[in-house]
């Protein structure tokens, strides 16, 4: 029975909590939650059918069931707690937890599925330029060695301190050594944020005087909080920055395995306005992008490399669409210590508000957007 329950989707388990006390205790048990997580990661990697997403801008946060049919059950949280405009960005997502950066002042760790969240102030403030580029590098990930979730903040200005936040102990620690890179002296901006994986933070940097060169630094902070830097730079002569290219490192840590996945000419017929890539699926050969936001809407683009088609999904989050951001996550029951529930009423929205329309090469999808239920929650703190 234990194993059968572990094979159920996380959402179903929330419902089955009220079957009986035994089930309730089991579903809340951290050991079971971990087993369930492992089970779902295992099956997810084979299927990839179900791709929930989370989408945020500076005043709301939006969770959806599936990026391929995003009109189904979008849950939206109004999360603005003050008038001041704050840039919102994803720090990362791991094991069903999503971490967002609010204006460089605080961050939020939330589990979109269990509707729990925790807001923590940054130990140091990092300046964020109006253009949305900030002078800090952030990372969020799971430290399997200590069974802990960690947020890493690397300041790129002045003192260049590095701080590590541990969710388990709810505290910040200053890393004994700084992240040193010869690049930082003349750093223009980090090209991409950081990617957490293999217990390392990976930052992609670009030199000022050498635009054709991309640097990928791996910094290990998670385990011993000592930066161990490994360089897996991509410095191909073929790199043409006028065109849009996607490269992947096929074998982790092997510099030579950098392979060009995709190239779209900016001038060609296939050109479209894209933000940074979000995800790539090896099995379906699809690339997801954040779509740029010029008509007051943000969205995502799913590019199918085999068919060379693209699908666009729009999120009509009302107003203020600056710096919207989107990410995928794997639903889990992982609990956040010291978190509170996102409270709020649910009510249905008007049909025209319905978040997502599909456009571009697959107009037939438009038919499907009608009349799906949406839930609205407001973001409030109970503690």
């Amino acid at each position: 029975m234990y194993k059968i329950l572990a094979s159920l989707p996380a959402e179903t388990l929330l419902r089955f909590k009220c079957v009986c006390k035994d089930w309730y205790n089991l579903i809340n048990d951290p050991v079971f939650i971990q087993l369930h997580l492992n089970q779902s990661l295992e099956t997810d990697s084979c299927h990839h059918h179900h791709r929930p997403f989370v989408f945020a801008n500076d005043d709301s946060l939006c969770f959806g069931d599936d990026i391929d049919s995003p009109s189904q059950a979008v849950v939206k949280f109004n999360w603005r707690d003050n008038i001041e405009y704050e840039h919102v960005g994803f720090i990362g997502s791991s094991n069903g937890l999503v971490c967002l950066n609010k204006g460089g002042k605080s961050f939020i760790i939330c589990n979109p599925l269990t509707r729990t969240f925790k807001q923590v102030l940054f130990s140091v403030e990092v300046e964020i330029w109006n253009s949305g580029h900030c002078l800090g590098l952030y990372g969020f990930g799971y430290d399997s060695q200590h069974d802990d979730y960690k947020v890493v903040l690397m300041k790129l200005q002045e003192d260049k301190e590095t701080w590590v936040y541990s969710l388990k102990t709810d505290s910040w620690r200053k890393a004994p050594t700084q992240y040193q890179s010869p690049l930082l002296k003349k750093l223009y901006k980090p090209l991409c944020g950081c990617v957490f994986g293999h217990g390392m933070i990976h930052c992609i940097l670009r030199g000022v005087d050498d635009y054709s060169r991309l640097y990928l630094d791996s910094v290990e902070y998670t385990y011993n909080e000592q930066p161990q830097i490994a360089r897996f730079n991509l410095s191909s002569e073929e790199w043409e920055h006028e065109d849009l290219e996607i490269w992947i490192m096929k074998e982790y840590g092997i510099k030579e395995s950098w392979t060009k996945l995709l190239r779209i000419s900016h001038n060609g017929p296939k050109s479209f306005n894209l933000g940074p890539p979000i995800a790539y699926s090896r099995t379906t050969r699809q690339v997801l992008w954040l779509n740029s936001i010029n008509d007051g809407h943000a969205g995502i683009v799913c590019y199918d490399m085999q068919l060379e088609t693209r699908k666009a999904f729009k999120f009509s989050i009302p107003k203020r669409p600056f710096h919207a951001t989107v990410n995928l996550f794997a639903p889990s029951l992982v609990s956040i210590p010291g978190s509170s529930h996102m409270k709020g009423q649910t009510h249905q929205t008007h049909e025209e508000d319905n978040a997502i329309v599909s456009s571009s090469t697959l107009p037939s999808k438009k038919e499907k957007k009608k009349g799906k239920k949406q839930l609205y929650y407001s973001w409030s703190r109970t503690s």
Partner: protein
Amino acid sequence: MASSSSSSLSRVVVKSSDNNLFVVNKKVASQSQLLKQCIDNMEEKGTNDVILIPLSNVTSNILTLVLEYCEKHADFADDDNNNQELKQWDHEFLKKFDYATLNSLTMAADYMVTKSLLNLCCQFIADSIKDLTVQQIRQIFDIKNDFTPQEEADIKNENAWAFR
């Protein structure tokens, strides 16, 4: 039955809890880690006699089904795991059974350490119950609701959106 030229067994005999005997060839038996372990142990000792493995927890009915599964999967053992035909067969195989049988089959797969069958059964049951209501779950698994109405309402409230 002993063969003097080779020390490897070609067949084993498996006994169900209701004392029926099943002759199983080695390749099929190897689908179960439990049986495989027994065979390996015997081979290490250099025994050439056909060995008898009693399974005190598995009835004939269920054992027949487990062996049917093992036989099919032994045929595909050299193929990669993503064989579509095999997946189709797995699905058709499980579709025939009621919950009670599936449950016994799951337990037998667990006991005989047939991991692929265990995963298959669990996923199959999970898929078939995931959209049921709490009430239906209690009926199927014969579970008594031991919450007070207030407790149940509280839990529902906490996860209200999951009940939409």
